[in-house]
């Protein structure tokens, strides 16, 4: 296991466990585990649905659940989080119906596939790399102006650090001392590009200094480490001490997405070396080691998650193909441009294309 990473959960063998940090009691640990399992269950089910052609291309996050659940668990309910496509289902831990996220991947828009960020304090799923970092900064900046004691957290990948938006957002946050947590999930790959061809630094955390903010490096497969680093960063932010960059060091255990074939560019044996660190079973055995969770509890949590996602799948499939009016809905709050109703008219007078079902996009033809 890589050293000099903030870590609490050992590997059960050579690497010892550290004491659970203050702020997490047994109830918290169980709840955090519940979150991990729910995310894992969603993810595995989504991959299956894609294979069956029931949703479109999907960006799996198998192995990164700890960077999501751990960080979110550290947030207060008023704090905002901004996911990328990789944290696509984070909203389900903040009240977004899982069916909505599945519907998004099924190609549904409007009320079917989108949610109201203000209702959940969760930004929309962000597809263009690094472009939601400035939003997270602006949001915590606005809270500061309004004297609200809330913070924002944004997830992004190692590849995202190369984008100009990463830089501009980091600098704005540092200059205006906003309560922003930049949570970088360093899974060491940007599609086929390894971190060694993405940047010339060994770590991502060391980039923080160039902005005058602290950078910390944690074991991204350790949910408790992700929680601790995030909790500390949020406290700094709320205390008015500004933003923090967190590098959650891990490895992308799966493909980039269901349309991606990693064998084209990397040795999957490499991935295997990391697999035993994956957070769900690791957290489970940790909780068993410290006697916080027994098999019954574990099974109960698994069953509960299975049931939740199962009903979400039915809910998703119960959604009718949205009508054509959805093309023009919710675009302008101030009214409808002349061409919207004309567009609908045009559609009414033409035969509607047969109902769309997500196709298994020919390999690589969609991402």
């Amino acid at each position: 296991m890589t050293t000099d990473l903030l870590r609490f959960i050992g590997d059960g063998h050579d690497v010892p466990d550290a004491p659970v940090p203050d702020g997490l009691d047994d109830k918290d640990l169980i709840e955090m585990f519940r979150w991990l399992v729910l995310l894992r269950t969603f993810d595995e089910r989504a991959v299956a649905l894609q294979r069956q052609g029931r949703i479109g291309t999907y960006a799996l996050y198998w192995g990164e659940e700890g960077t999501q659940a751990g960080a979110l668990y550290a947030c207060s309910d008023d704090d905002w989080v901004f996911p990328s496509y990789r944290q696509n289902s984070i909203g389900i831990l903040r009240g977004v119906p899982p069916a909505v996220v599945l519907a998004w991947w099924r190609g549904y828009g409007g009320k079917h596939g989108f949610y109201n960020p203000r209702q959940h304090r969760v930004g929309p799923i962000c597809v263009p790399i690094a472009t939601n970092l400035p939003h997270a900064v602006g949001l915590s900046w606005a809270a500061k102006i309004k004297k609200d004691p809330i913070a924002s957290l944004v997830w992004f990948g190692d590849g995202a650090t190369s984008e100009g938006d990463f830089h501009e957002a980091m600098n704005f946050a540092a200059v205006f001392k906003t309560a922003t947590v930049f949570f970088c999930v360093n899974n060491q790959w940007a599609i086929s590009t390894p971190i060694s061809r993405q940047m010339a630094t060994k770590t991502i955390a060391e980039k923080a200094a160039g902005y005058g903010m602290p950078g910390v490096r944690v074991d991204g497969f350790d949910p408790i480490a992700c929680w601790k680093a995030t909790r500390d960063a949020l406290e700094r932010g709320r205390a008015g001490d500004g933003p923090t960059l967190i590098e959650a060091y891990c490895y992308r255990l799966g493909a980039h997405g269901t349309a991606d074939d990693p064998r084209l560019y990397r040795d999957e044996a490499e991935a295997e070396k990391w697999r035993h660190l994956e957070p769900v079973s690791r957290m489970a055995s940790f909780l068993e080691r410290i006697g916080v969770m027994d098999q019954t509890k574990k099974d109960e949590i698994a069953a509960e998650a299975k049931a939740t996602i199962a009903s979400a799948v039915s809910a998703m499939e119960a959604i009718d193909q949205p009508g054509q009016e959805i093309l023009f809905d919710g675009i302008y709050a101030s009214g409808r441009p002349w061409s919207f109703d004309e567009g609908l008219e045009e559609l009414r007078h033409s035969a509607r294309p047969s109902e769309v079902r997500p196709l298994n996009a020919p390999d690589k033809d969609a991402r």
Partner: protein
Amino acid sequence: MSEMTMVEGLNLALTQAMERDDRVVVMGEDVARTGGVFRVTAGLLDRFGEERVVDTPLAEAGIVGAAIGMAVYGLLPVVEIQFDVFVYPGFEQIVVHAARYAWRTRGEVPASIVVRIPYGGGVRAPELHSDSPEALFAHVPGLKVVCPTTPSDARDMMLAAIEDPDPVIFMEPKRIYRAGRQEIAQEPPFELGNGNGIYNEYLSKARVARDGDDFAIITYGATTPLSMEAADRLAEERGIQTRVVDLRSLFPLDVDTIVKTASDCGRVLVVHEAPRMAGIGAEVSSLIHERAMLDLEAPVGRVTGFDAPFPQFANEDDYLPSVDRILNGARKVLDF
């Protein structure tokens, strides 16, 4: 009542909006301490303090992106882009995020920002300070694109743009920033903050700047005064009455006024400073032909900037539509 330039009208609107609604913040490069390169935001810092009037670092994507985040949290940011061309580093944030935030949130969280862009040529500025990018934004669904021509419209439209929940690209024709003064009533034209949609009246309707039904010139921004002059010349020259329509809103277009004008006048010329290829003029011309072909006595003409980079300023008067070029364009339509 007092006589104001467009710059002063905009400044008044920002002051009044900030007074009445503390969600309004102003941000951009050099907007606070200097009051902006063009002084549109002068005095706001002293009056509203540095939390609400912010000199930002030099980064347009950061500025627009942060403004979007602020809007999501409930503020109403008014962003200044220092000069037209410098909006391009922020282009992605505008077209991918500001334009689609409402759509991406079931219509419930529009990115309520105003992006002010002093644009266009005619001020003898160095390279890359004279672009007219409005058509780029008008082509992108989800944005509103407006452009005032008179000081009083500038004031009213700015207040309306801030009220408007949708993202508004506010094009400011820098050439006529101080070209003339106009009486502006102190009182805002509508009650601010009542959210009853009245602001739309001030954003989506074209203005008939000069009446007439023999011929029509449809334009906006700095070419409007030139079109007015051309209209007078045509009256002398041919004794015809030319209607001059100042579009004010470039998206959505006021299609009713455009089509009615074409039907009333039968002959139409569209004038703007931006390049011609797929510009606003192309859309206006197409709309008219599609909807009023039978009322037309001649094809709609266009007098525009050329499909060439805006020139170094010693030749900018050659690039910009002149009264004489407008007159020739008019004659072609009239003599068809």
